């Protein structure tokens, strides 16, 4: 609790990180309150071919798409899809990556080697390529996008946690706990995990931005949620045929992706500065 108050107060002072936090807060509010922000419940799915490709203004704040759908409503509901994908995919990556990294880093020997070589295989292929391959194989749906992103993102957490655990393992207080007869699982959970929490939090925030970008790319390539779903990446993809005349078509979803990814990155960078005691000290030095 004390730590949370500390982080919030530091964030408030770091302007760019605070901006990032505000953007993400806005994303969450929009996703939760989507039905309240649109004129009628299925505005995001309604098609009115007679009003297709209307420019922004009047009844349609961000214009309409090729089917006469309200782009404003679709972007609002798209926040739900984006947030779901990012939270679930990064959550699953955490659940796989952190324990694997802890075990591999703490035990070292052959088990650790095997786990790390497996994660190296995943890291050797660019994430987007691997995610495309998985999504293509499984077919386009939100569930498969989440699966593809989880399967390709967990090794980043493993690498990070592995490196931190390895250096912590040589700390005197870990050796002392072992000499005291504390069982290994207890050392991992009570001593090592809290000491690697900061980098994990930072990586989670940056990973969210990264995952949203990759999810949008998959949507753009037609590998995301199937057509009626208001998915930001797919909306941009659809707009290509109507550019440059219907300039507003890609504007709102594009801006949404840009803002959200930037928000997570700003917050991640800010958190890194706040949680890393070395940088904190350097800032004190500068006054």
């Amino acid at each position, binding site marked *: 609790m004390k730590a949370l108050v500390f982080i919030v107060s530091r964030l408030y002072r770091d302007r760019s990180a605070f901006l990032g936090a505000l953007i993400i807060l806005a994303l969450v509010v929009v996703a939760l309150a989507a039905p309240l922000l649109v004129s009628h419940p299925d505005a995001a799915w309604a098609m009115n071919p007679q009003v297709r490709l209307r420019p922004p203004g009047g009844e349609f704040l961000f214009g309409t798409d090729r089917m006469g759908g309200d782009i404003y409503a679709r972007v609002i509901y798209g926040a739900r899809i984006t947030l779901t994908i990012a939270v679930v995919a990064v959550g699953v990556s955490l659940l796989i990556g952190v324990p694997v990294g802890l075990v591999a880093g703490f035990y070292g020997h052959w088990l650790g080697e095997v786990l790390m070589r497996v994660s190296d295989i995943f890291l050797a292929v660019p994430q987007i390529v691997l995610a495309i391959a998985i999504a293509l194989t499984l077919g386009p749906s939100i569930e498969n996008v989440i699966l593809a992103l989880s399967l390709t993102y967990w090794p980043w957490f493993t690498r990070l946690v592995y490196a931190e655990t390895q250096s912590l393992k040589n*700390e005197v207080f870990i050796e002392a706990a072992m000499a005291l*007869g504390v069982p290994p699982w207890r050392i991992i959970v009570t001593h090592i995990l809290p000491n690697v929490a900061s980098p994990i939090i930072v990586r989670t925030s940056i990973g969210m931005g990264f995952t949203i970008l990759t999810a949008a790319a998959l949507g753009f390539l037609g590998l995301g949620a199937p057509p009626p779903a208001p998915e930001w990446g797919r909306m941009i993809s659809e707009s290509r045929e109507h550019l440059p005349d219907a300039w507003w078509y890609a504007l709102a979803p594009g801006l949404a992706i840009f803002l959200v990814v930037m928000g997570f990155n700003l917050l991640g960078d800010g958190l890194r500065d706040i949680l890393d005691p070395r940088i904190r000290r350097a800032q004190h030095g500068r006054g």
Partner: protein
Amino acid sequence: MPLDERHAGDAAALLRVRGLARHFPIRNALGLRRGSVKALDDVSFDVRPGETLGVVGESGCGKSTLGKTLAGIHRPTAGSVLFEDAEIAPLQGAARRVVARRLQYVHQDPGASLDPRWTIRRSLHEPLIVHSGLSEAEREQRVRGILREVGLPPDRLDSYPHELSGGQQRRVGLARILTLQPRLVVLDEPTSGLDVSVQATVLKLFRSLQRQFNLTYIFISHDLAVVRMMCDRVAVMYLGRIVELGPTDAIFKDPRHPYTRSLLAAIPRIGGPRVTDGFVLEGEPPSPGKLPSGCRFRTRCPNAAPQCAEADPPGRTVAEGRVAACHFA
């Protein structure tokens, strides 16, 4: 022949170490074994209940490896360790951790042995949570009792390690170990890094805790003056082996092994001869990965003779309760 064998040792020994070895592999670029560093090589000695056994020697002689191997941080490569009449050398995992309750190890810097994110209270409760079934209230009572014994006010319980002074951190480190009521405590360089006044207080504390909790100490140090003051018996180590072992007074008065003699000559004394006058050691000890043939001290020994290159001198009883590993002792 292992040191101390003829001197069959006390039947009542608390700890009986025989032929203890700890080798660290040296690997080449491909990770293949290329040789080994014999950090401990055929070490044998007894520890009697209630005594303080000093272990002295230069840096790299294996003092700390000895302590860590006894404490179970390193696994012995060979040899036997009888603790309270039970063999503990081959034990691993949960069975070894149970022994830790009675045989404890204090790090050189007990402050660094505390998790920086934990309060002192949490660090002191930890060993009791692991080793005892006491309730939280009972643990708190025990912790407060021990804290009083080591001379720390109970309001320190809510502090973090970095908020304590070096001496206070050491007291917490000791308290953490004493909560388990051990029989044998390995103190690894317990006075290094403390200024002299704090050092005296800490040593006094060791003494009074020893009496109060009926502790037996293995006191690892390179500070001969402190060892002379604190220890009943002394073991002198050179390159992974004990070269001389005996009562402190006898060894300081009449060292038999040439290595012990040169170590003692290195103690500065007011009004005494210059340190460099009696100092016969030259150069660095050879690498423990490449030991000389025969006696391992011969490359630096002033009395080296041809037979020293041929035969590794076994430890022999040279006087009542004294053992030395030298052909001429």
